Structures are given as structure tokens and as C-alpha cells.
């Protein structure tokens, strides 16, 4: 019970960098971020957004490269959801009437792939799913989080 208090005192008395050495197991803490590092994280993200954007807009080359068949009707996600309109990612998870179950955004993405698009369902943890999710969240990043909202 006394350890947290000790740490608290150390925190009050010690510069933050030294604290990183004093508390917690070695290696559990990040190096201080640099602008270059942040930039590289952002680039990783934006590359996913770019791929997701292409998948969302039915780009055949990207689908082929990622080995997915998101549609067999010529329909692409963006045909009903230009600029991701009406995807409402910020309302998930929620009860989704079409599936009659409590659903995540990933469930909904797969429902759209299988039903209106008549394509092939993708794995929840697949690269294509992550890219689609990245694009949808990026595009809607100004929308307000409102989980459960119909």
C-alpha cells in the first residue's frame, strides 16, 4: 500500500524524465516523441485512409491487391455513402435493425458488403477492414461520438 505514495512523493520532487527511470519496469516507457516520429505515425494512418478510400470507392486494383471482393453488382460503398455520408460510425456499437443484433461498425461494413453489394464478407481483423475503418473514421472525424443512437 505504501508504494504509490512513495511514487507520488518522487513525482512531486523529481523532474519528469528522471521519474521515467525511477518508476515502473524498465522498457515500459516510450522515448519522448519527436515531430519526425509523429509524422511517421500519421503517415501510417493516412496510408490506411488512402487504401480505405480506394476500397470504399470500388477501386478494382486495390481490391485485387488486397485480395477482397467487396461487390459483385458494380455498387461501391460510396454510391450510397458519398464522403461516407450516413455511415454514422460514431453511433456504433448499437442495435442494428437490419441484422437484428447489437452490432459494431465492422459488422455493419460486412452486412453492406454481403447484402446490397453481394460481395464476399471480409475478416474482422483483415487489412481491408482496418483500411475501410480508417477511411470512415477519418472522413467523419468531426462528427460527435454518440454510441447507441439510432
Amino acid at each position: 500500500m505504501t508504494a504509490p505514495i512513495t511514487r507520488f512523493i518522487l513525482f512531486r520532487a523529481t523532474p519528469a524524465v528522471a521519474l521515467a527511470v525511477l518508476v515502473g519496469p524498465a522498457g515500459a516507457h516510450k522515448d519522448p516523441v519527436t515531430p519526425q516520429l509523429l509524422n511517421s505515425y500519421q503517415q501510417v494512418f493516412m496510408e490506411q485512409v488512402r487504401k480505405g478510400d480506394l476500397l470504399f470507392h470500388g477501386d478494382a486494383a486495390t481490391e485485387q491487391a488486397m485480395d477482397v471482393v467487396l461487390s459483385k453488382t458494380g455498387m461501391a460503398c460510396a454510391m450510397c455513402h458519398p464522403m461516407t455520408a450516413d455511415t454514422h460510425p460514431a453511433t456504433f456499437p448499437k442495435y442494428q435493425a437490419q441484422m437484428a443484433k447489437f452490432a459494431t461498425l465492422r459488422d455493419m461494413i460486412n452486412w453492406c458488403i454481403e447484402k446490397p453489394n453481394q460481395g464476399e464478407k471480409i475478416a474482422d481483423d483483415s487489412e481491408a477492414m482496418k483500411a475501410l475503418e480508417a477511411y470512415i473514421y477519418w472522413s467523419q472525424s468531426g462528427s460527435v461520438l454518440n454510441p447507441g443512437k439510432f
Partner: protein
Amino acid sequence: MSELERDRREIAAVLQQPGVHPDPSLRITRRTFVHRSCVVGAATVAETFAWWPLLNTLDIAYAAEAPFKFAWISDTHLYPKSLNTRFVEKTVRAAKEVQAMSPPADFLIFGGDLAQLGKVEELELGVEILKEINIRKVYIPGEHDWYLDMGKKWGELFGQPHWTFDHKGVRFVGLDTVSRGPDYWTARKMSPEERMGHMATLDGTVAGAWAGVGRDQLDWLQKTLANWDRNRPVVIFSHNPLYEYYPPWNFWVRDWREVNEVLKPYTKVTNIHGHTHQVLYNEIGTMRSIGMLATSWPWPYAPEGVPKLTKPMIRVDPGDHFDGVGWAKIDVSAQDKVEAEYIMWRKQVFAQSPDDYAKSIPEVLRPRIADNIWPY
């Protein structure tokens, strides 16, 4: 302030001045739309503004010498049959229903986007399906019909993309709002297919502000209307709406200011348009504007700019491909009354509560980026 916001304020300042409305003798009838039948009630203009204005029933004074009706179909977006049979089924259904109208419609206006990617095969499939309809047919182009071969096949099939005729006391005008897009393809050395691909992406960022009437066509319109009594009705068909709703999706014409200048002297102008694939109603100066349903699929309402006078359509069930789509019947009665009736293939057209309206959940959207990154 964003450019969009500036434009929007401008349109309000210029065109929505207090006291300026379409023909004040307008009476709007309240209807609940049910497939093939409707319940009729009456409301005065004042009541209507207090309530939701209604889309379907419009009076045009001095309109009809004899009652008549015409039908509208648009935005069938046909792919080759082998790829997509759903769009074909729905076009066939609309054609059959128009042909079955009794008494028959005087003519059919096809409001553009017959094809999805402008292919000969797609346009010819459309012609084939519309053969079911034996009445007079007139056509205006949509962007999906045009940008593979720059309107060559469309012109061979349907002739001039703009035209006018008088019918029972109404001057009808068809406008081409799609063919004057800025050249985004030559400098980028695009193939016709690539050019079409960008044009066929509603939220694309490459084709830009392609919707417009153009100076030459405006001059033609002015000449066409010059000998027409300013108090007699004019009905203008266009693929895009003739006002500014949401430029990023070309839910507008970029030269709406000039269009308004030409139409200003005429007191009874009704614009009927496609492209937006949704229930829309707006009044701009003395012009009223009615958006028609697609047969193919519904577009969502844009994240901003939905006209306040629009009673929104109900949220669509994406599991039912006959939902949120359909065609329209327009009546001109002996009492000089013009009615537009949405024939939507489900029970309810309009939102019944705020939760039925998709935009009851606000969203802030970013335009796409992947089409603007090299090598695009």
C-alpha cells in the same frame, strides 16, 4: 467562412428575399403517398408554410387548356445486364407502370443518367427497356451518359440535348446541364474510361464543378422564352437542380446566378430535376424546384444545405433495393393545377418523426483524398 458558406449566404441574400415567392396563387395539397393511391387533404399557403410544405401538388395559373399528365423517370444508371440485374428490374418496373397509367400520360420525360458508365451497351439497354412505353418520349442527358464518348452515342440515340415545345398552354424546356464540365482529362492524359470514372464518382474531387448551363445555352433559353407571356407557365427539365444545394456533389449548377437572371421576369417557373436521387423541394425567387427519385438507388441528403422547404424522405432500408427509389407522375388539371406525385416503391415516402430523418444525427464529413493523390 468557407466558400460554401459564403455561396450559401449569397444565394439567400440574392434569391430568398422577403416577399419574393413563386406564384402566390399556389395551393398546396397535403398528401400521404402510398403506392398507387393517395389520401388528399387541402391546406392554404399560410398553413403550408407553418406545417411542412408539400412537394407534390402545385398550381400553375393559366396552365391547362385541357387536363393532362406526364411522367418522369430518371437515374436508372444501367450497367450491362450481366453485371447488375437489380437496376434493370427497377427500370423495367418503372417503364411498365408508366405504360399502365390510365388515362395515359401525354409524354415521358427521361431526366438523365440512363447509363452508369456511358457505354453503348448500357445506353442501348435503356432504349430497349423504354420501348415498353408507347407515348411520346423526350430526353435530357446526365453526366453518366456523357463522359465516355462526350455525348456521341447519346446524341445518336436522342438528338439535341436541349429543346423546347409547347403543350396545352405550358412551355416545356429541356436543358443540358452536364456537357460543359471543365477539361480535367487532357492535361492528365486520361483515357475515356478514366474520364468517365471520375465523372461517375459523385464525391470525386477531380471532375470539379461540372454542372452548368453555359452562356450559349442561357442565350438560347432567353431567346426561347422571349415570345412567351411572362405570366404563363414554364416547366424546365434539367438533370441538376437549378439552384445551389451542395456543390461538392454538383447538387447545383455553377451558373445559378445567370439562370436566375434569365428566369426572373417569368412568374410561373417550375424546375423539375434528377441527379440528387432524393425528395427535394425548394423555392428560389419566383421559381420552384422539385427533385425526383432515381429508380436505381437513393443518395443520402448532403451533410448541409438541404433546403428548409424540403420535407425529407424517410430513412431508407438498405436491405430492400426497391426502397427509396421510384418514379413520378405529374398532372396538369383543367383547373390549371400541376401535381407531381412521387411513386416510391414502399409505403412511406416522408419522414414521420425526426428519427426517421437520417440527418437527425449530425455528421461532419471530409472530402475524399485518394483520387487526388498521384498518379491520379
